[in-house]
């Protein structure tokens, strides 16, 4: 696993370096009624959200306030590792770990909030043990809800949904009690734990983090 993570980190660094050196271009649509010739060649680059933009973005996406004590404690502890400006170059190797920690804290708080978590896990009964709670239909509904709410709907530049659904299904299966290397308890506690784990996996992906 450590090797795989290292490989993933390398791929992120390569992607970021590439993004930094190549200007990403958005050509203006010529159909805009407010357009002028001066605006026709305008370009825009790409960037990362800063630490505070990530905090408020995650709060908006999960519904958990940024002022939440647990969230704030984690934010303060990881802030120095999060991007300090929008330039891609401010995204360091440690940044993804920090984004993941922050996303995890939001998701842990979301799992505790009976009112808010319902929107992300339609049909999931948190009082049941994972084996009973995570039926195939509930799994798909939950993962799709996370992707829809965190990545948006109808956007062409977000990850392929069917591929992502399949990957997150595999993740969820590996988290189930009894799966090889799984440490998830077989009680109802494990149901919330799996919920927050999948939530963090989707929230910490790049879509909510790019500016």
């Amino acid at each position: 696993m450590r090797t795989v993570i290292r490989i993933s980190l390398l791929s992120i660094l390569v992607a970021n370096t590439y993004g930094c050196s190549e200007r990403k271009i958005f050509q203006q649509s010529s159909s805009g009624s407010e357009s002028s010739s001066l605006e026709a060649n305008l370009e825009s680059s790409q960037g990362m959200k800063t630490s505070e933009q990530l905090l408020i973005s995650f709060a908006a996406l999960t519904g958990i306030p940024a002022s939440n004590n647990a969230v704030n404690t984690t934010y303060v502890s990881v802030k120095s590792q999060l991007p300090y400006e929008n330039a891609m170059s401010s995204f360091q190797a440690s940044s993804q770990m920090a984004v993941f920690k922050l996303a995890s804290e939001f998701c842990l708080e979301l799992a505790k909030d009976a009112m808010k978590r319902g929107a992300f896990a339609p049909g999931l009964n948190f009082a049941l043990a994972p084996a009973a709670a995570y039926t195939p239909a509930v799994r798909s509904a939950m993962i799709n809800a996370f992707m829809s709410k965190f990545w948006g709907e109808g956007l062409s530049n977000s990850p392929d949904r069917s591929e992502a659904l399949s990957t997150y299904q595999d993740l969820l299966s590996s988290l189930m009690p009894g799966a090889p290397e799984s440490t998830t308890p077989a009680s109802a506690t494990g149901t919330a734990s799996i919920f927050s784990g999948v939530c963090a996996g989707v929230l910490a992906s790049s879509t909510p983090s790019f500016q």
Partner: protein
Amino acid sequence: MNKKSRGILFLSFLFFAFQAPSSQAGPSRDKANTLFNRIAGIPPSAAQLDQMEGLISEGKWRDAAYVAIAAPSFYNLTLKIFAAPKANVAKAIDITLNDYIALVIGMVRDNVPFNEVLTTDRYYIGAPGLTGVTAWARRVDDNGNSRYDRNDHYVSLERNRIDLSNPANFISVSQSAPEYIGVPSAGVITTRGFAEAYYSAGTNRRPFAVGLMDAFLCTPPEMYKDTIVPDTYVRRDVDRAPGGESAEYLNKCKGCHALQDPMTKAFAYLDFNNDALSFSAGQVRDKMKRNQNVFPSGSEVLDDQWVNLFTTGKNAAIGWRVPEGYSTFLNGTGHKSLGATLAATKAFSRCTVKKIFQQVCLRAPSSEDQAFIDQVVEAFEAPQGSPAIKYNLKHVYAEVSKCVQ
């Protein structure tokens, strides 16, 4: 980190690496999504995305931008990021909220022309009674006479994530009132945030060179340096032959000091001590008389009457104009008239537009963008938006966002 967490982290890596952002212009919905993120700093809701997509499809790009500008996070995040680098010497954007940044956010929210940022008497604080927020208060020290107005209030506003876009939460008061800053006000120049960054220690040259010329006119000393200007007003603390070399002074030191020293007289009565901004009417601060024996024949600061020697040579390009309510840009008395004079320059408008362009487009404007920048600058100085006001910062965000298209 246990095995489960490592697995989830791996997946987040996976989708981070896979999903490099698109480099091509997408359909209206993708554009709307990017536009909202750039202006509001967070992802749009489904309803906001639908609305902006519709407007962009109809070619109403500016209206679409205003949907994002109406979001609370435009004030709480985007304007904070716009103001923060001006409020500290290191130009960091992730500093804690303070009264300087709060003033910029409040002014824009309340549609105050941005050129008043260096002159206004407005001051923004959290409304009384906000849960968990430390009240704005001046504090008396152990001796019972020095007054403190630390940043506690703004720290707690930020910690509690008070929505500054809401007039019920965030109100305007008189900066010069005795219960607040209590000195002759000049916008951010007389905020505690500016004072801590630029008046603390030193010789009061930093507020001019860094706090104003660099931050608001995008003209740092290395740009305005001009050795042709006479050194009539260079202060006594500047060595005319550093290391025994008069050429060093003539070719280097003089270039900046000849210009900035006569301007810094505007801050003759201002200082930052005991954790607060202080003003001593008619009493020149000791810090401006420091090291008088270095060159006793140099200029002595006797009052706060400043002189502008930037109007000739290359610095004429700053675009000096007589500010409203004044009769000249060549000289003045005190920090407020200096603020008004700097805010009336063309460079102030150009700099403001360029910084917002960089913030929204995530790159510095190139020479190819110059004509567009000029067009936005012209619009910035004319009544725009709703309500139509000059120096409408929201309108600049809407205009420059066209780079996202």
